[in-house]
């Protein structure tokens, strides 16, 4: 394998990987405050892309993206308030089924709102064939937008969770809900807020990746499964680990192309997930002792 080919695979892997990581971070935010895995997370990504594409004819690109993110956040809030907020102590099984149902409904609604055709945002910089030369390999500038967006989100989230009052309240919910309530934190609002935040992050991911991957009504499901794989691979709830796991999975997928038929690529990702679940359910980077306190 030449250096050029190696770098080409590497960047392909980082591109997939960053996308998976952003979706996984969305999962983690909600999981951390609620203990729920939101199976509709992929739909936020799809909605972000779709809405921004629809808005593009009437406003400039940055504004369209901002509006799409805001609208998707609103949608996230609505989902939480309408379907989850008022449930008392729902079991995991019930929550899994409800979020799967929400994912199906969102997808089918998108089909009837936007029809089945495929759309994409224009490239933020340059066009479809412009590339940046990295050590002989050619990489689309949009890839750097994806990687940059992923990095920014992680940085933003770590500042948010460490440095702001709301962020600390959300972490308190994650650590011990009863104690958080006793400290006067409105846990219900924190849950709504976590949905808003992860919807916004998903939507932004949907916009940034749209020029590369295109957007269609049924994009979300596949992304959600990959994102979930990554979230578990890194250890549920740990966003920095999710980024590492996302990049790892992306790179494994990219390099697997050189030895295995492409058709089995997805099966590989899922097989890795199953193996991780069986041998290290707390994830590659999770701590086993901490995991002993959780339920798997």
């Amino acid at each position: 394998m030449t250096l050029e080919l190696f770098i080409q695979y590497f960047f392909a892997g980082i591109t997939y990987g960053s996308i998976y990581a952003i979706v996984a971070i969305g999962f983690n935010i909600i999981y951390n405050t609620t203990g729920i895995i939101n199976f509709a997370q992929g739909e936020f990504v799809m909605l972000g892309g779709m809405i921004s594409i629809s808005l593009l004819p009437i406003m400039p690109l940055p504004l369209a993206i901002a509006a799409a993110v805001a609208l998707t956040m609103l949608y996230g809030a609505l989902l939480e308030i309408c379907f989850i907020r008022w449930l008392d102590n729902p079991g995991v099984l019930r929550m899994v089924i409800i979020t799967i149902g929400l994912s199906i409904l969102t997808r089918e609604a998108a089909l009837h709102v936007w029809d089945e055709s495929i759309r994409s945002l224009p490239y933020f910089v340059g066009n479809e064939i412009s590339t940046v030369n990295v050590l002989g390999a050619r990489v689309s500038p949009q890839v750097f937008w994806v990687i940059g967006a992923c990095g920014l989100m992680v940085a933003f989230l770590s500042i948010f969770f460490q440095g702001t009052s709301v962020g600390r309240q959300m972490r308190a919910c994650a650590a011990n809900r009863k104690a958080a309530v006793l400290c006067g934190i409105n846990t219900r609002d924190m849950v709504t807020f976590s949905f808003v935040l992860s919807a916004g992050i998903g939507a932004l991911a949907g916009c940034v990746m749209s020029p590369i991957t295109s957007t269609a009504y049924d994009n979300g499901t596949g992304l959600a499964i990959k994102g979930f794989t990554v979230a578990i691979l890194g250890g549920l709830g740990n966003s920095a680990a999710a980024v590492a796991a996302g990049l790892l999975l992306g790179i494994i997928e990219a390099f697997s192309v050189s030895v295995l038929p492409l058709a089995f690529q997805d099966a590989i990702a899922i097989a890795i997930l199953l193996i991780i679940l069986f041998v290290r359910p707390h994830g590659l980077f999770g701590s086993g002792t901490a995991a002993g306190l959780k339920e798997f």
Partner: protein
Amino acid sequence: MKACRMMMVVLALSLAAAPAVMAETLKVGAILAVTGPAAFLGGPESRTIEMLADEVNQAGGINGKQIELIIKDSGGSPEKAISFAKQLIEEEQVVAVIGPSTSGESMAVKKLFEESRTPLLSCAAAEVIVNPVAGFVFKTPQSDSFAVRRIFMTMQEMGISRIAVLAGNTGFGKAGKEQLQAIAPTMGIEIVEAEVYDKDANDLSAVVAKMKANPDVQAVVNWSIVPAQAIVAKNMRQAGWDVPLFQSHGFGNIKYVESAGVAAEGIIFPAGRLLVADKLPADHPQKQLLTKYKADYEGKFQEQASTFGGHAYDAFIILMKAIENGGTDQQSIRDEIEKIQGLPGTAGIFSFSATDHNGLDLESFEMVTVKNGAFVPYEKQ
């Protein structure tokens, strides 16, 4: 016990809702993948035949009878297609069925239509649907082998002999890949790389890099009907790989060109003439029909007409022609379809026979290329 009583009520209700037979209408069934993974086929197909049926009915019907169109959305799954086929044949007693949209579904229901002696006009491309010929089964899309031959002929002109093949993991990609592999040796073409990708693939730069690393590859053929077509084009050009890119007739949708942007420039692919309708000479037999379909469809649905909708269009006009020529029931309609000669459709000029239930030939494809973001006929440089 309560459960049993409920079941009884539900069943009784559904039995009571048995449809009444209406006089002076002609029931035509359609099984199309309006939703699901093949929605990009079934969507335009169902919109097209709804539009056509309205048109016929407003003009007073056919032979004085109104068309009653019954469209069933199979979601692209064979088991539903089978259930709907039985329903349409037996319960609705339709005179003919248009669809299904995909090859898998068409093959699944083929036997049923033979057994019940009801004509089926499939909108799927695979050759096995009409080869071996089954008495009551027809198809309107051009065969993949025509597309493959046209591509290889163009390659021969360009002096290309070693190629890489990429295909999507849909029925369309599968059938194309098989034809490419079967026909290549007979036309002096060697396939040196072959890969299949997922229909939901997001990025194919890794596999493009792999193929680019093989210095033997003189051209790439990509065979799919999914957005990955645009992604292949983008990834190839991004990688600075400028060998000719051939696509299948699945590329015949301007949305893919829009999605690939400048990367689509110079892509060569075979397509029905719908895409270049306005650039055809005025005396071309398909010209009038194609421009009318395009104008009607685009006016009504505010989206570009695609060749997929065209397949349903052809199925519908073939059926109407057969009825006009005296077809009144399943058997006579079948016989009349077989007699149709020189009927212009969107895919080409249909001439059926007892051994040819597709009715098209190599001429039904035109080599098309992308220039300045639009489809133009390909001319040898």
